């Protein structure tokens, strides 16, 4: 019973964290884009009077959601009502439950009980992530089809082709990491990254698999349909693609889905390539510096440091994706498909073969 309660509360905690982070990213996106484009950005709805520098937090975190949720929920004539309503949820739910396998800390020791800070420990680990990400395609496809709008349909068709194409390099990049660490469980992969190479360099995934990291970043951004891969929702061509006909809360769900995908990509990059919750030289009982000297820390503080490290890394990669979005122009569709199939796929295959060969030679 108590085990069930722990798992349940970890799951709820993880999902709430992701939802909040999604809201926060909206603010980062709007203010960040304003900074890059030399604009002021969101500055209305200032509650505390006119401050000299308005961060627009109230605007994006309170006023925007209220505006979205009080808008008319419009279903276009001739649309498939049921699927039009279901599509945003079908797109969002698989993404949210992906997070239960991502570990955000090592162990939390409360009252002699060791709690692993990972909501679900599945022996198929990474495969579960791939499965859930591949299910989220249906939100795009159905949203596009059910709207009875040709731009939306084009967006849906583009989205499905793009997401299927980029799932392959994504999966192959993951195989390189799995080969390097010899496990599919994300918690075990993270623990393996606590080792030190030559006593100094943390054995993070990026050291072993730099190519896989680049492939994963590119394919991950393509999976989350963000610029430079935002062809399914290209607003200058398709109005806003598969969610052209959506308004109000349903549109908010689609937008949140995009952010959640960005967080998944950031979380996976952190876990697989940047040591997850690992802090360099921090073991369970405190810091062990390579130049000698140790710093003993209580176990609760170590756990907090680890969770903090994971959160910071995830935030950094979310920010990086948003900056990429506002820096690069959009690809053409044929460029997008040939990048996926002619560059990323052979590169990922070569990476897997090379990794396997090196492992074979050295073991």
């Amino acid at each position, binding site marked *: 019973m108590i085990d069930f309660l722990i798992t349940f509360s970890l799951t709820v905690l993880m999902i709430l964290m992701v939802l909040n982070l999604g809201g926060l990213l909206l603010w980062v996106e709007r203010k960040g884009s304003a900074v890059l484009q030399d604009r002021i950005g969101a500055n209305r709805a200032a509650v505390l009077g006119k401050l000299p520098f308005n961060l627009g937090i109230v605007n994006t975190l309170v006023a925007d959601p209220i505006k979205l949720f009080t808008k008319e929920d419009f279903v276009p004539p001739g649309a*498939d009502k049921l699927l039009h309503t279901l599509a945003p949820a079908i797109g969002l739910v698989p993404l949210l439950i992906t997070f239960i396998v991502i570990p955000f800390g090592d162990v939390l020791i409360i009252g002699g009980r060791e709690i692993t800070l990972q909501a679900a420990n599945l022996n*198929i680990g990474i*495969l579960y992530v791939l*499965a859930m990400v591949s*299910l989220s*395609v249906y939100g795009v*496809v*159905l949203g596009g089809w059910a709207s009875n709008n040709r731009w939306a349909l084009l967006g849906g068709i583009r989205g499905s082709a793009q997401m299927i194409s980029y799932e392959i390099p994504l999966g192959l990049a993951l195989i390189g990491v799995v080969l390097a660490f010899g496990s599919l469980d994300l918690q075990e992969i993270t623990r393996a990254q606590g080792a030190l190479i030559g006593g100094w360099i943390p054995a993070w995934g990026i050291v072993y698999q730099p190519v896989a990291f680049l492939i994963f970043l590119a394919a991950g951004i393509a999976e989350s349909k963000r610029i430079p891969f935002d062809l399914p929702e290209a607003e200058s061509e398709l109005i806003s693609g598969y969610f052209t006909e959506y308004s109000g809360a349903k549109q908010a769900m689609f937008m949140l889905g995009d952010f959640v995908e960005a967080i998944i990509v950031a979380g996976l990059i952190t876990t697989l390539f940047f040591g997850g919750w690992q802090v360099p030289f921090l073991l369970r009982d405190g810091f062990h510096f390579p130049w000698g000297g140790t710093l003993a820390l209580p176990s609760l503080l170590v756990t907090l440091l680890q969770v903090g490290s994971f959160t910071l890394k995830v935030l950094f990669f979310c920010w990086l994706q948003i900056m990429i979005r506002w820096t690069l122009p959009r690809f053409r569709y044929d460029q997008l498909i040939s990048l996926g199939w002619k560059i990323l796929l052979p590169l990922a295959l070569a990476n897997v073969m090379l990794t396997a060969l090196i492992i074979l030679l050295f073991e």
Partner: protein
Amino acid sequence: MDFVTFFALAIPLVVVAVMVIAHPSPVYSALFLVMTLFLLAVYFLFLNAHMVAALQIIVYAGAIMVLFLFVIMLLNLQSDTLRTQRHGLGRVAIIGGVILLAELGLLLQGSSSELAESSLPENFGTVEALGSQLFTKYLLPFEITGILLLVAVVGAVVLAKR
């Protein structure tokens, strides 16, 4: 798998499978098939086939069915009329149905229970176990499947380029 789990999965499975062939709209048919495949994946989990369940979702629900939906949308298919015009199938259907019922009845007769969870070999159905079998005992079929997939890719590209 206990009886409650079995019926909780089997009844929805049969219902959605019937909807696949009974719904007039091809898009809904495809979606019901996705639901069937998803429920089957859950079913596989209860049969200790974790790897197969994951593959079922990644390959079937995530790729094959999206391809189906893609084609349905590309062709912009509307709902069919569910008219059937097959003559001379009635007698065959009756004979086939009787044989099938007899088989199902026979199955119920000689029913033996599956192995207990504890007597299963260790890591039954996990990725490691399946992988090591696949790359040792079944290496040749595995390679041939690879060639088959390559042929299919080439064939699909050639057909689509016409």
